[in-house]
């Protein structure tokens, strides 16, 4: 479904990502894990067209998207739930969700999606008039994921959804991802620092280090490898 072919990204001349390739298959959940600064967010932003590539290609359903503008990529059905959530703080929950459906013109499907999000996160329904900036981190993350679902994405890319959340909230967020896997036909690309959770959730995983893929394979296998545990836990 999504294919990244040998991309290189430079910041002010310095390569931060070198010749990286990866694949996301339809209906799969793919995890990308790695330490802070390994280039995970850079990868997602490159897919979103927010960062220019110095080399390589990105294909979505066979179509080259690395020359497109971000908003065109969104219209193709790739939705990015960014790190730090990037909600529109002073706006209400509902307004934020409706902005998630900005590219959708069909009122009925908007309503359907809104209901689905509210059903997924009942807490958002309770607080739909509240300014999203005044909610707790976990609620904000729900709003961010909910906003991502508003346009019925073909590929949902979650960037550190557990960042800054209390453990209980983290499980709740991952539970949601699991439910999306079960219910929908949504493909998920999950970027996480929370290695174990991410690997447990994913079908396939990539381990990223200093802008390069260090290891890839079925997530369960990676989870079992000592190398991973050592690299991330120092255990």
């Amino acid at each position: 479904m999504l294919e990244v072919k040998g991309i290189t990204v430079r910041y002010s001349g310095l390569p931060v990502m070198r010749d990286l390739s990866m694949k996301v298959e339809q209906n799969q959940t793919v995890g990308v894990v790695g330490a802070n600064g390994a280039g995970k967010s850079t990868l997602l932003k490159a897919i979103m067209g927010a960062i220019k590539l110095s080399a390589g290609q990105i294909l979505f359903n066979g179509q080259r998207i690395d020359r497109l503008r971000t908003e065109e990529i969104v219209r193709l059905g790739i939705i990015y739930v960014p790190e730090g959530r990037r909600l529109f703080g002073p706006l209400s929950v509902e307004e934020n969700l409706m902005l998630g459906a900005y590219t959708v013109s069909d009122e009925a499907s908007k309503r359907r999606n809104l209901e689905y999000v509210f059903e997924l996160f009942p807490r958002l329904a309770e607080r739909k008039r509240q300014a999203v900036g005044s909610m707790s981190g976990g609620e904000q993350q729900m709003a961010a994921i909910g906003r991502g679902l508003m346009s019925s994405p073909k590929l949902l890319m979650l960037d550190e959804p557990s960042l800054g959340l209390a453990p209980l909230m983290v499980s709740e967020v991952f539970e949601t991802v699991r439910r999306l896997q079960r219910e929908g036909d949504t493909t998920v690309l999950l970027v996480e620092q929370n290695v174990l959770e991410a690997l447990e959730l994913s079908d396939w995983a990539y381990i990223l280090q200093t802008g390069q893929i260090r290891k890839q394979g079925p997530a369960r296998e990676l989870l079992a490898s000592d190398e991973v545990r050592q690299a991330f836990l120092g255990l």
Partner: protein
Amino acid sequence: MALLRINNVSKHFGGLVANRDVSFDVDQDEVVGLIGPNGAGKTTLFNCIAGFYPVTSGTVVFDGQDITPLRDFQVARMGLARTFQIFQASGDLKVVENVMVGSFMRTGSRGSARRAALEVMEFLGIAETAGEMMTELPVAAQKRVALATALASDPKLLLLDEVGAGLNPSEIDGLIALLQRIHTERGVALLLTEHVLEMVMKLSHRVIVLESGQKIAEGEPAQVVKDPEVVRAYLGDHYVKRQKEGGDA
């Protein structure tokens, strides 16, 4: 008498509680690690100590003086230096000039500021980059310069915020050795937060674990890692559960 004493420090942002009743000490001859998952409030605590944020309640005592009401630059002049998690070099300063800004805290003379800066850079092994522009250095080297700048202000205590972030394993090993030398040869106490646990474990004499703004554990690195609370905080409930299941099986 501890060099730094944190007494029941709490920090609220509006309704959000970032730190709640955190207390601990750092001694002059110590390296203390401050760990915890993302969003546990480590950086906020650093900012409170450094006077960047006013604390909501509690006190910070440094070198026998209550520094809670002091502003950040006043705290820095007391001998409490810090590095920043996100370090962006954008300016038109050369490396040595950048480090000199640190040494200018202790002297008004350009000559002695320059000497002090070069000495610190020599110590950190980056003397050869002195004439280069900051923006031309790779990230790892930039971080070293930031470290040199903080060190050039001749601090008693150095707060290190994620110095290892974005470095590869071999770079991290070098950094660990360096920090150890800073501590032993220069007698600077270190308080560091880190994601790369490996580094914290190797460096610290003592580790303090924060979660959701509260201290949940304190002790020697080896013990703390085994603390189920800590493992749960870091790796999540499932992992703990599975470990148990695994243990049962």
